[in-house]
């Protein structure tokens, strides 16, 4: 690579930015593994903090995973058929509906959580169950699923494929199952990974919706940041990274793949 002055500047900005993003992450990983963060690495490496995190927060990690899985199931059941229906009806109504369900992308989670709390806060059984948090997660992730699938469906010649399946004797349901869903797979996969990733990391809504007995991983994180020693908070963050980073990478890979189809 030929280095000119502008290039050097660009490289410097890029490297500085990367450092800004990665250095604190490395710090937190190290802090979670050292015996005493203030004395530095020289105090030795340990898994003690991770062990404590497990004792303290295993429940919230499990809850987050459970929420992610159920959230995925619900967004699949609601989102994939909805994307299909939106792709089939090009009218104004569908665009309005698409815009409407995308509101959670634009409106801050805090506002949505307040809205949910005020309408359902007094329904005790619902308010205190994990389903209440699930509703928040589905609300937030659903537009990602719908849009991801919709983009792929719009890019293929859905109408011809369906019509040819129909002339071959396939009913609406059979066409959906054997033609629409398999061909929408790249979009579904990208949507699914996005849903899981976002659900595991969701904080803004969850913080408002959770109860003391139902803490998700990020809620537990906030809790540990406020009340635990730095090493434990770091170790917990490390656990979160271990869960989220592979998901993020998979999500980016799947999204790229789906976008190549859409182009």
């Amino acid at each position: 690579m030929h280095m000119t002055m502008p290039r050097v500047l660009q490289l410097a900005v890029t490297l500085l930015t990367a450092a800004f993003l990665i250095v604190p992450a490395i710090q937190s990983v190290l802090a979670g593994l050292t015996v005493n963060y203030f004395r530095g690495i020289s105090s030795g490496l340990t898994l003690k903090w991770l062990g404590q995190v497990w004792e303290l927060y295993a429940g919230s990690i499990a809850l987050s995973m459970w929420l992610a899985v159920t959230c995925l199931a619900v967004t699949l059941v609601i989102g994939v058929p909805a994307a299909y229906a939106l792709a089939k009806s090009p009218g104004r109504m569908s665009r309005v509906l698409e815009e409407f369900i995308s509101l959670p992308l634009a409106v801050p989670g805090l506002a949505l959580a307040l809205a949910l709390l005020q309408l359902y806060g007094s329904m005790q059984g619902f308010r205190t169950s994990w389903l209440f948090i699930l509703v928040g997660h589905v609300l937030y992730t659903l537009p990602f699923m719908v849009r991801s699938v919709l983009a792929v469906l719009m890019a293929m010649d859905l109408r011809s494929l369906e019509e040819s399946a129909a002339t071959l004797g396939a009913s609406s349901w059979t066409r959906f199952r054997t033609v629409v869903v398999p061909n929408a797979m790249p979009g579904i996969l990208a949507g699914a990974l996005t849903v899981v990733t976002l659900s595991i990391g969701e904080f803004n809504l969850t913080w408002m919706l959770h109860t003391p007995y139902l803490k998700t991983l990020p809620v537990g994180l906030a809790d540990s940041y406020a009340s635990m020693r730095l090493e434990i908070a770091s170790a917990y963050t490390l656990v979160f990274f271990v869960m989220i980073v592979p998901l993020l990478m998979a999500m980016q890979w799947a999204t790229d793949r789906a976008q190549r189809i859409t182009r």
Partner: protein
Amino acid sequence: MTLTITNASKTYPDGTRALRPTSLTVGPGEILSLLGPSGCGKTTLLRIIAGLERPDPGSEVRFGDEDVTRLAVERRNVGMVFQSYALFPNMSVCANIGYGLKVRKVPAAELTRRVDEVLALCRLEDHAERPVTALSGGQRQRVALARAVAPRPRILLLDEPLSALDAALRDSLRDELAAMLRQFDITAVFVTHDQSEALAIADRIAVMSDGVMQQIGKPEELYRSPASAFVARFIGNAMPLPGRMEPGRLVLKGGVLPVPEAAGRSDVYVRAEDIHLDEDGPLQGTLETVSFSGGHYRLGIRDVVEDTLFATHPGRQAPAPGDRVRLRISPDDLVFLPQSGHMPE
């Protein structure tokens, strides 16, 4: 299976009258071609037969004795080859072809047997397990045909099955497709806007224009005795010979042409291949353009009629532009149509 269409018409929700009331019968095993310029309603008629489009009230579609007008597409048991082929990209060649059998819940053994049979008929054995995305245009076209015929449809419908191919491939596949269609022995309706395709493949041709059926008949019939100026022009590019009709002769700008006494008051048309250079010919004109097209020359001749008249010249040499030439047209080759008030465009 006989296909009978009675008074089928279609008005789209935006008010476009794509098809005026049309009646049509296609006999068992017959191959009918719907021929007409772009936008004349061919696809619309085909989709009405398939059940993909609901015709206006009063229309009727019958397969044999059964009235299928209100029957949903998936119950009609038609086979359709789409212009874009619409092969399922998520399935292999085999799975595409077997799809219609699979959704009809044909037992696995029977399904394999029939898929193999169709694969052989369409010469696709070597590609059976390949994904359809890895096929050439011609192969895709054959898969689309194989997929449509595998469930043994009552009627086979093809919407410009060759138009997605490039010109050279189209010519070579035309005869192949004709042969395969004969082999299947299924009543077929074949849409095209290419007359040579229709002439090569169809038993009968239905010529359409602006949503109206102009004429239905055997290829030779349409060629020799077109019912209207539109058909004459569309099949074989007949050119008008505008002149003064006198008993037994037609007076043109470039000479006098003998015509049968019976011709009476009619418009006269002629095709380029029926105009011959002849030193003793009764017509005279000036050669304007000469273009060589392989087997013959195409000559543009001025001053015989108002417009340029074209003639094909099979000789090894052609006169040069600017030369005076004499022409002969045999009275048998002239096409006579009832006189219209104005000269058709």
